[in-house]
């Protein structure tokens, strides 16, 4: 079957990523200060972003799945956009929003700088991962029959108590899945972070940026190593999931 060919090629390409470079090279690259720095930046920013994304996506997913409110279809359409929407364009749009409009000015007035800073990484990651997370959480809530909630309420619990006691525990695995996906998205996002936070060496440098920067310097060893690190983190995330 043709598919096997594709799967095989994909598999081969992943293994070639691991097998082609020399082991010593990779090992030394991994303990390179630049790599450690960018790994830290990546992990911290992704964890923060994932937390914020979850905090947003649970109430949003619940609202979309349970209520009809004015503008619901617009919200849904806008949330669907980024799936078929180039990362790079999203990054550019955010850059313009925070860099060239009054919103950026207001934030700057309060000392908050988004453009070309670590805060920018987090913002970029949130905007990349949030639509995915909301979609998963929303479809998880939609799969839960509202009858369970109605039963809980008829037994004397308020809507919030019902959400806490019934809906949330029943949605646990879906929410867990969405946080893993969000984390992996945050780790891997490149275009948006590059645009909004800039790819500054040893400052706004996440793992994909490290990969890219080293690639463009011709430092293939470092590039491959950061690729492998990214790959490992993705694998671990998917294995947990």
């Amino acid at each position: 079957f043709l598919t096997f060919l594709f799967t095989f090629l994909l598999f081969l390409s992943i293994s070639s990523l691991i097998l082609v470079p020399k082991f010593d090279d990779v090992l030394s690259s991994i303990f390179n200060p630049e790599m450690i720095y960018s790994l830290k930046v990546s992990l911290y920013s992704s964890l923060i972003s994932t937390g914020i994304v979850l905090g947003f996506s649970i109430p949003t997913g619940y609202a979309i799945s349970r209520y009809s409110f004015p503008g619901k279809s617009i919200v849904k359409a806008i949330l669907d956009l980024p799936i078929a929407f180039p990362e790079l364009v999203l990054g550019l749009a955010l850059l313009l929003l925070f860099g060239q409009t009054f919103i950026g000015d207001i934030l700057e007035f309060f000392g908050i700088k988004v453009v070309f800073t670590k805060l920018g990484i987090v913002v970029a990651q949130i905007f990349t991962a949030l639509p995915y997370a909301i979609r998963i959480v929303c479809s998880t809530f939609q799969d839960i029959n509202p009858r369970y909630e109605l039963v809980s309420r008829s037994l004397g619990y308020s809507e919030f108590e019902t959400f806490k006691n019934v809906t949330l525990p029943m949605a646990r695995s879906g929410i867990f899945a969405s946080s893993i996906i969000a984390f992996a998205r945050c780790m891997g996002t490149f275009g948006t972070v590059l645009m909004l936070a800039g790819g500054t060496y040893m400052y706004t440098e996440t793992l994909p940026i490290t990969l890219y920067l080293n690639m463009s310097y011709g430092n293939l060893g470092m590039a491959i190593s950061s690729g492998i690190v990214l790959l490992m983190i993705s694998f671990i995330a998917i294995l947990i999931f």
Partner: protein
Amino acid sequence: MSFVKIENLNINLGEFKLEDVNLSVEKGDYVTIIGPTGSGKSILLETALGFYTPETGKIFLEETDITNLNPEKRDISIIYQDYALFPHMTVYENIEYGLKKRLNDKKTIKEEIIQITKMLGIDHLLNRKPETLSGGEMQRASIARGLIIKPKILFMDEPFSALDVKTKEKIRVLVKTAIKKYGTTVLHVTHDFEDIWSLADKVLIMKGGRVYQYGTPEEVFSNPSSEIVADFVGTNILDSKVEEISGNISVLDVSGVKIYSSDIAKVGENVKVSIRPENIIVALKCFDSSAKNVFNGKVTEIKKRGHLVWLTLDIGGVDLKVLITPNSLEALEIEENKNLCVMFKATGVKIIR
């Protein structure tokens, strides 16, 4: 005023709707709601429970207007066909869930749970998760969960239709006992006539979002108020014209056949009458009796249906369905084209217009 009162309820959800539904239920009544698919039976329950907001109309419970109250303030439990047991809780936790909102004393809670689960025969399953139970066990757990909080009303939405015949019968008996013990008022949506015969004090017949009749099962089945109801409950429906009134008896003309009814209508009026198939007596020869309607009929069809036999008899051009036992069939040696005497009382002929 009644215990539950529903006034002019209207709601339209597209596929399902309610139109001018009025209903009053007395305390302790067991009401079954029956009707074809799409008749709005479930919507009625879920609106009364507070899941949908009615467009117009009011719902009263013990003379309090609860139309806009949150579901958790209404003191109504609901039991679904698919049980809706919380999958992440054990049977014990499921049953405890509603009770612990009301009671703080762990010991009392435990005693009450053990009492009700013993009554329903599921006290050995308390530590199991719902997914490990059979359909009948899940349904009993969900009944325990609904009943134990002693709700003012218990709603049941086709509670037995996912169960097989044997389990259904067992659970009906258990439910009857439990509900009698708790003295609960029940509204029970069903499409199974058996539920009516074994459980109901009152029957509500719905179709297309409207209420067609409300009364005791005997009233509804022996005296359907409209053709729709009669058609649904399965009686003989005949078109007739009122010829004369003599004393307390109407003389009706059904395509040339004269039928006597103890219901009174206006002379000349066109009316429909309902005659229940089990109220018609057949015999080899006619004899004097208290039956006003006596005809010679010819058997045109014999259909065996399990424990009974449906005959179709032609009395002077009018077809009548008659219900007899297989024993009578043998005793009277009934076969197609045999001539029999057909008798029924004037009180058995109901005018339904």
